[in-house]
C-alpha cells in the first residue's frame, strides 16, 4: 500500500463522515452499496464530490465495478495517475 493510496482512502473516509447514518463505521473493506446505508442516488452524488475533490471523472461503468471503499480509492488513483 502506497502513501498515495492511504491519502485517497483517508480523504474518502473523512468526506463520508458527515453524511452517514449514525453508527456506520467505514474501512477499506466497507461495501459501498450495502455498507453505507445510502441510496443509489446519494452514492452517485457522493462520488461527484470525490470527482471534484480529486479533479477526475470516474465513468459510470467504472463506478459499477467498484464494490468497496478500497476499490473506489484505487480506481481514483488509477484515473489520476497516482497509483
Amino acid at each position: 500500500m502506497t502513501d498515495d493510496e492511504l491519502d485517497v482512502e483517508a480523504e474518502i473516509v473523512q468526506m463520508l463522515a458527515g453524511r452517514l447514518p449514525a453508527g456506520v463505521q467505514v474501512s477499506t473493506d466497507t461495501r459501498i452499496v450495502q455498507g453505507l446505508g445510502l441510496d443509489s442516488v446519494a452514492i452517485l452524488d457522493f462520488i461527484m464530490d470525490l470527482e471534484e475533490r480529486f479533479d477526475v471523472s470516474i465513468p459510470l461503468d467504472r463506478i459499477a465495478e467498484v464494490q468497496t471503499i478500497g476499490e473506489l480509492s484505487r480506481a481514483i488513483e488509477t484515473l489520476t495517475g497516482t497509483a
Partner: protein
Amino acid sequence: MMSLTAKFAEVRAGLDALSAMGRNPFDIRFEKMLSPTMALLDGRPILLLGTNNYLGLTFDAACVAESTRAIEEAGTGTTGSRIANGTYSDHALLERRLAEFYGRRSAMVFTTGYQANLGLISTLAGRGDHLLVDADSHASIYDASRLGAAEVTRFRHNDPEDLARRLRRLEGRPGDRIIVTEGIYSMLGDTAPLREIVAVKREAGACLIVDEAHSLGILGEHGRGLCEAARVEADVDFVVGTFSKSLGAIGGFATSDLPGFDLLRLVCRPYMFTASLPPAVIASVTASLARIRTDSSLGERVLSRSRRLYFGLARAGFELGPEPNPIIAVKMPERETAVRFWNRLVDEGLYVNLALPPATPGSLSLIRSSVSSAHTEAQIDRAVSIMTAVGSELRVLERRAVATALPVG
C-alpha cells in the same frame, strides 16, 4: 424458484411499508376518465393534477376524429417494424411535419419517448466516444448510457462549470463528446441553463442533445420548447421529445440537421427491433401537432394556470421547486409525511404524484403536480385549497413557518 424474487426483498419491504400507510401509490386504478382533468376513483370523481396532460388534448375532438378515421381506414396496428415490414405513408408524413415544425432537415419517430432517448443516445455515443449527462437525467437517458458503448460521466445538475471541467479532463483524448440535457426536468420542473451549456459545448466542440419531453408545446413562442425560448436552436444538434405528454398520445421522436441522420434507421436497435406506432396514434399526434402549430393559446394557458398554482402554493407557505412551470413539486419534510400527505389528498379528491427517493434528486420526498391547459382557474384554486388544508392538518406548513423564521447563522 422462490430465490428469483429474493433479490427484490427490499422493494417488497418498501412497498409493504407504503401500503401499510394507505393506498399503494404504484397501483392507482381509475375506473373511468371523465375528461383531461377528471376521473372516477373508487366510485368518486377525482381532480387530476398529476397526468402530464399539459395541453389537455387527450379528448380533443379533432384528434379523436382523426384517430377514429385512421383506425377505420388503416387498422388497429402496423404489426411490424418500419425497416422490416414497411412504412405507412402517415408515419412518414408525421416525420415531415415534425421536421417542418422544428425547422430541421430530418425527424425520426420512435414507438415511445423512452425508446427515442434509448435509441438516439446509445447509437450516437459509440465506443471511444464520451457521453456527458446531467445528473438529474430521466431513466431513459441513463438506460441509453448503459446500452451504448461510450464512456459515460454525469455532470452536476444544471452546472455548466462542472460540465466544462469534465470536458477539459477529456482534452487530448480521441472520440466525440456528446452532452445530454433536458428542457424542463421532470421532478422539480426546473429548466436547464441552455445558453451557458451551449457556450461550453461550442468551446469544447461537443454536440448537444436536448430532451424536450416536458417542454414541447409549452415553452417558446412557437411551442418548440426551451431551445426556442432560450434562442439556442442553431446550437442544439438534436432535439428529442415525446408524444405522450403535450401531444396526448404515445410515441417519441428525434430531429436534427445532421447530414445522414436517416442512416440511424439502419443502426439504431430501439428503432429497428420494435413495431411502429399504430395508425390511430400517428393520426392523433399529427392532428395535435397541427393544433399547437396554429394555436399558441394552449401553451399560454398552461403557463398561466401553472403560475396560479405555483404562487398559490407559495403564498400558502409550501416549499417548491425553483420555477413556475407546469411541473410543480412541493418538498415534504420527510418520506412518511409525503406518503401521508399524498394519501390525504386522494381522500379529498385530488390526484397528484408521490415521488420518493431514489427516483428524486437530492433524496427529496416530493408531492409532484402537473398542470394542464384544460384545468379551469376554479380547479387550480380547489387544488391549492385542498393542499393547504392538508398541509395544515399534517403540520407541514407550521413546521415550515418555524423553520423559515429561525435566524440564519
